[in-house]
């Protein structure tokens, strides 16, 4: 018992630690946000730690690049843009915490969230406040059904599933098997939409195999799928899993095509190559952004991104960049209309209206909204040649 601290000391200690923990939040409550008329404060939220941190960090870098360029060009209406960046670890609870914190900090709009479930939680919470919300990457269809204040710059899961099913029909595939992460809303969403559309088009879905998040061995499922002799396999997952799936399927002797969605972006071309060039021959996925795109604005973006972060931008970086573009285009028009950030309610309502009528030439294609929060934009079918991505086809909305 020599090392036991006396109980009273301990109570004192824990009381002190409680107080220490509470103090910052209480102090924060006392300091009411001051509205600085020369600064436009916009919130940016996403997962910057935890299991999905790579996507959040990528989106954030795109937003930061855009704002840096904007501020360098004199900001909006002579006002500087200030970002309030908060981590939500990919968790819905933390995302709503962050949302309320940003409300308290007096942001005029929020760029976020990154993944679907936290984004929906924030969309539900923001409805009451009429807070403009632009997500660069949350693809779940339900995101925009809560209110007119929520927008996204990416294409949705069902849209991607339909695009790839149409593509499969065009390629003349008769039998297709699917393998998807059954614990992920994105993967399930694309898979379901693909299967529905493919069956309408007369493609036989020979086998649908799920796997759990965190699985690394897909051989059992792939063996079952390959036994049905499919022309193609749909793998609408994120690139790390896709890499393993392609490699293992090739190992099991599968020579057909692979179809994927924009989760494939970054499978090659980044810091790591998740599948070999030989294995990637005959793989197709859809995405709005690819470095191989020759368009001038895309190449400018890639160059600026390289200068800023010394690495290649991914699909998520581009989506973040476009989300910022939509948001600040709207804010610029609101500012030009003479609105003042100090009249927060009206200012926010103005931004929402401006986004809804906006049109920008983003690096992920031209984006506009026609009455919903979903963008009207084109998408690209991307394939691989000697391990390098290249545009195979362009699908207009």
């Amino acid at each position, binding site marked *: 018992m020599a090392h036991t601290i006396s109980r009273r000391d301990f109570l004192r200690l824990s009381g002190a630690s409680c107080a220490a923990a509470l103090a910052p939040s209480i102090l924060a409550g006392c300091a009411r946000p001051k509205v600085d008329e020369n600064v436009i404060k916009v919130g940016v939220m996403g997962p910057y730690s935890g299991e999905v941190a*790579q996507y959040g960090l990528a989106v954030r870098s795109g937003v930061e690049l855009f704002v840096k360029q904007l501020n360098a060009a004199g900001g909006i209406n002579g006002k500087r843009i200030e970002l309030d960046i908060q981590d939500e670890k990919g968790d819905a609870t933390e995302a709503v915490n962050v949302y309320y914190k940003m409300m308290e900090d007096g942001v005029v709009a929020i760029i976020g969230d990154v993944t679907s479930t936290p984004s929906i939680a924030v969309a539900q919470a923001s409805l009451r406040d009429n807070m403009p919300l632009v997500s660069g990457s949350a693809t779940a269809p339900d995101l925009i059904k809560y209110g007119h204040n929520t927008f996204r710059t990416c294409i949705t899961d069902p849209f991607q599933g339909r695009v790839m099913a149409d593509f499969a029909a065009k390629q003349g595939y008769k039998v297709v098997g699917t393998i998807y992460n059954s614990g992920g809303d994105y993967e399930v969403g694309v898979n379901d939409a693909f299967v529905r559309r493919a069956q309408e088009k007369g493609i036989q879905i020979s086998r649908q195999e*799920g796997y759990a998040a*965190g699985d*690394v061995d897909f051989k*059992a499922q792939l063996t079952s799928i390959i036994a049905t002799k499919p022309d193609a396999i749909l793998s609408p997952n994120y690139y790390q899993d896709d890499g393993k799936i392609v490699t293992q399927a090739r190992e099991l002797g599968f020579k057909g095509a692979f179809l994927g969605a924009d989760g494939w972006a970054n499978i090659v071309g980044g810091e790591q190559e998740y599948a070999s060039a030989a294995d990637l021959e005959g793989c197709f996925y859809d995405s709005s952004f690819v470095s191989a795109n020759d368009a001038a604005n895309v190449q400018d973006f890639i160059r600026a991104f390289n200068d800023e972060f010394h690495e290649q931008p991914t699909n998520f970086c581009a989506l973040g960049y476009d989300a910022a573009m939509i948001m600040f285009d709207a804010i610029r028009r609101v500012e030009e209309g003479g609105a003042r950030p100090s009249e927060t309610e009206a200012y926010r309502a103005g931004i929402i209206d401006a986004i809804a009528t906006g049109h920008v030439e983003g690096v992920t294609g031209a984006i506009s909204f026609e009455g919903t929060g979903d963008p009207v934009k084109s998408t690209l079918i991307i394939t691989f040649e000697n391990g390098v991505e290249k545009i195979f086809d362009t699908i207009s909305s």
Partner: protein
Amino acid sequence: MTFLTQVLNGLQLGSIYALVALGYTMVYGIILLLNFAHGDIIMVGAYISWVAMASLGLHPAIAVVLSIGGCALLGVLIDKVAYAPLRNAPRLSILITAIGVSYFLENGAQLVFGADAKVVPAFVDAPNIVVGDAHVSVIAVITIVVTAVSTAVLTFLVQRTKLGRAMRAVSEDMGAARLMGINVNTTISFTFAVGSALAGIGAILYSMAYAQATPTMGIMLGTKAFVAAVLGGIGSIPGAVIGGLLVGFAEVLVSAIGLSVWKDAVVFALLIIVLIVRPTGILGRTMNEKV
């Protein structure tokens, strides 16, 4: 042919689980601790391989030695720093410490290496063996052989050597072993070294088969192997192997019949059923409670 391929899939998966389960079993056998950090030691081993080969460009053989040695060292270090001060504390405290170590390793790895997966280069460049329709992966064969050899060596070590006898004595009764002149702390350290070296071998086989290292890769692998160890009877070497293969085959079988989304539920249901019928696992010894 599909059937044979699936059997091979089951054997490969089961072998990796078995190898990791052996590490759990050894540590549990000697200090009755569910070493939650065991899966994370594998993660560290995979990162060591990645650093050695991808960053430093070392020969794969050196990477293998570094990974196994690094894991063994890490295991001993964890025991000395986090578990040894708690030898006489309540069991639950050590368990929480193990969880703390696991959190520490996962978040530390994320801070150092980032959340994105690192691709571990191939250790061996071996094409598939094609038998008729079936593709037999050389890596699968290597995995199965390495696990079999490791198990044999481990069994010899525990059953036939002096150190092995000391380990069994400590596991039987720590106090009595000390009275018989066994250096208990050295023996425990040795057990951690062996168990973690097995994790190192597991890390190599894992990297060979799946080629990616992520900070959270140890969680799933650790949980499954842990289930395997308990299923076979924790503390028993043949039990761990049987448990590992059983879990591997169960997963493959469930996937093969088209119920892959229920795979994890079936594995845990299997565990529950075995524990209800045989409360200490398939080969576990039943212990009589003292009054």
